[in-house]
């Protein structure tokens, strides 16, 4: 960082000798990005709020005037509240599974000296770069009633008839864990790599057992990565659309599925906007509470 600050100061000194300061002319470099984000990101987000306050209309995406009715419906209708609860629950089950599967992989990847290390990195990374429709399709082939897993279980005689592995929460959760696991592993790898291995050796040489070293040293030090990964996976799960639709069928409804239905099929934009904002608010509230609690937890350790 400091190396990057010094040249900036230098350019200011140089600018004083010139009629038009370089740093002021250089400002034009950032203008396209500011326009793009200002006009096509910040303004639209403000606009969602106003859209959610519009009354629904027939034959048009929204009516005239403003109302709180869309929020009232979302927060009182028991079916809609159920879907909201289901969506949050899906996040709360996906996150711990991702952490349990991802932590050992991240630890191994961070510490391995194998010459295959970079190949393993590709293995973690590549699912991330393959589209989410393709990956969900892979799980469709594996989990469907006549799919690969059921076939193999029947062939080896473990079961008689196919198990119900998809069109339920199980299938959606399996695929969601797969889709978002790299987002848990990658932040963890960075944090674990930054832990000085000599700390571990010191603790071991002072007589701490391996388990104790892990609980008292490695785990607390990897906390920032755990926090980043869990929040990322939680938020991504809440807003997932493709995977719940493809593996949940008609049985698993999440908020994102409802929102897209209201926007595209029912043409009820204000209702969809209100639902999207309620979900976003619940997600942010959950992350806030979690960050507070885990902040207390880390303070307790130090």
């Amino acid at each position, binding site marked *: 960082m400091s190396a990057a600050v010094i040249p*900036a100061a230098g350019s200011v000194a140089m600018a004083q000798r010139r009629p038009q300061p370089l740093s002021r002319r250089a400002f034009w470099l950032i203008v396209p990005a500011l326009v793009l984000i200002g006009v096509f990101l910040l303004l*639209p987000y403000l606009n969602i709020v106003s859209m959610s306050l519009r009354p629904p209309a027939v034959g048009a995406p929204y009516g005239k005037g403003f109302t709180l009715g869309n929020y009232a419906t979302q927060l009182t209708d028991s079916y809609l509240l159920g879907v909201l609860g289901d969506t949050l629950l899906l996040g709360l089950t996906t996150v711990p599974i991702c952490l349990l599967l991802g932590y050992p992989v991240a630890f191994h990847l961070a510490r391995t000296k194998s010459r295959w290390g970079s190949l393993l990195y*590709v*293995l973690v990374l590549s699912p991330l770069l393959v589209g989410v429709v393709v990956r969900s*399709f892979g799980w469709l*082939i594996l989990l469907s009633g006549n799919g690969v897993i059921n076939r193999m279980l029947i062939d080896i005689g473990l079961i008689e008839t196919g198990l119900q592995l998809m069109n339920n929460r199980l299938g959606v959760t399996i695929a969601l864990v797969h889709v978002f696991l790299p987002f848990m592993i990658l932040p963890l790898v960075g944090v674990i790599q930054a832990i000085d291995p000599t700390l571990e050796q010191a603790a071991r040489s002072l007589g701490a057992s391996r388990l104790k070293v892990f609980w008292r040293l490695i785990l607390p030090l990897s906390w920032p990565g755990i926090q980043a990964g869990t929040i990322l996976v939680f938020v991504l799960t809440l807003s997932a659309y*493709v995977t719940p639709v493809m593996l949940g069928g008609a049985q698993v409804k999440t908020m994102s599925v409802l929102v897209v239905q209201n926007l595209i099929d029912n043409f009820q934009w204000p209702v969809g906007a209100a639902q999207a904002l309620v979900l976003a608010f619940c997600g942010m509230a959950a992350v806030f509470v979690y960050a507070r609690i885990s902040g207390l937890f880390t303070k307790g350790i130090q």
Partner: protein
Amino acid sequence: MGSRVADGLGLAFVGAVYVFLLLPIVIIVLMSLNAGEFLTFPPQGISLRWFGTLFANEAFMRAIGTSLKIAAIATVCSTVIGVAGALYVVRYSTRFREGLRMLLMLPLMLPEILTAIALLFFLYASGIGTKTMFGLVVGHVLVTLPYVFTNVASTLYNQDASLEQAARSLGASPLRAFVRVTLPLIKSGIITGALFAFVISFDLFNMSLLLKGIGMTTLPLQLFDYLRWDFDPTAAAVSTVSILLTLAVVIVIDRTVGLRSLRFG
């Protein structure tokens, strides 16, 4: 002795997770080579017939063309905007550096589907609409911009700005100093960011679902629609094409700059 058993179990667990990560992708590639009529396992012989079916499928071929076109336009736009932005943030910004960095990374931190919804309403309200590709391309540029920005910014931080200043003080114009000195130094970051942006845009679903015009479809959308009604190896063949594209990009990045230099945020 006990610790060796524990190590073995740990390694087996890690190995199992890698299998879990790769399983759906491997199964798709195997299925696309299936000689049989259905998506059955084990495949009934090896053949490339489903790729033949795919190349004869006009809807899929058109969707691949649209996806390539949008990804190419979006990549060019986000690369130009992202490189300029990174140059400003790293080299010239003083007080607002951290704020600007956060602002340019913002599209990555907001859920894609929420951004797509916001853009849909905004395009409608502003009269731009979704009749042209404009809205769709803007959405793709927004999502891919952070990848270019962060990859270029991290290479810029590692380069010495005094080289460019030396060229300037020797009389090179700012443009010439950039093209002849800075650009070659940050080339690797630009290549990585642009390739990454291309793959992300090619695979983008939610943004395309909400912002596509009538009659327009991208590959992920076409595959998604196809799977609602049909469940045959053509879908596996088109998925394999998409996987191979990703693989090619991963190999190029690995060969030019190394995958570990990739930045996600």
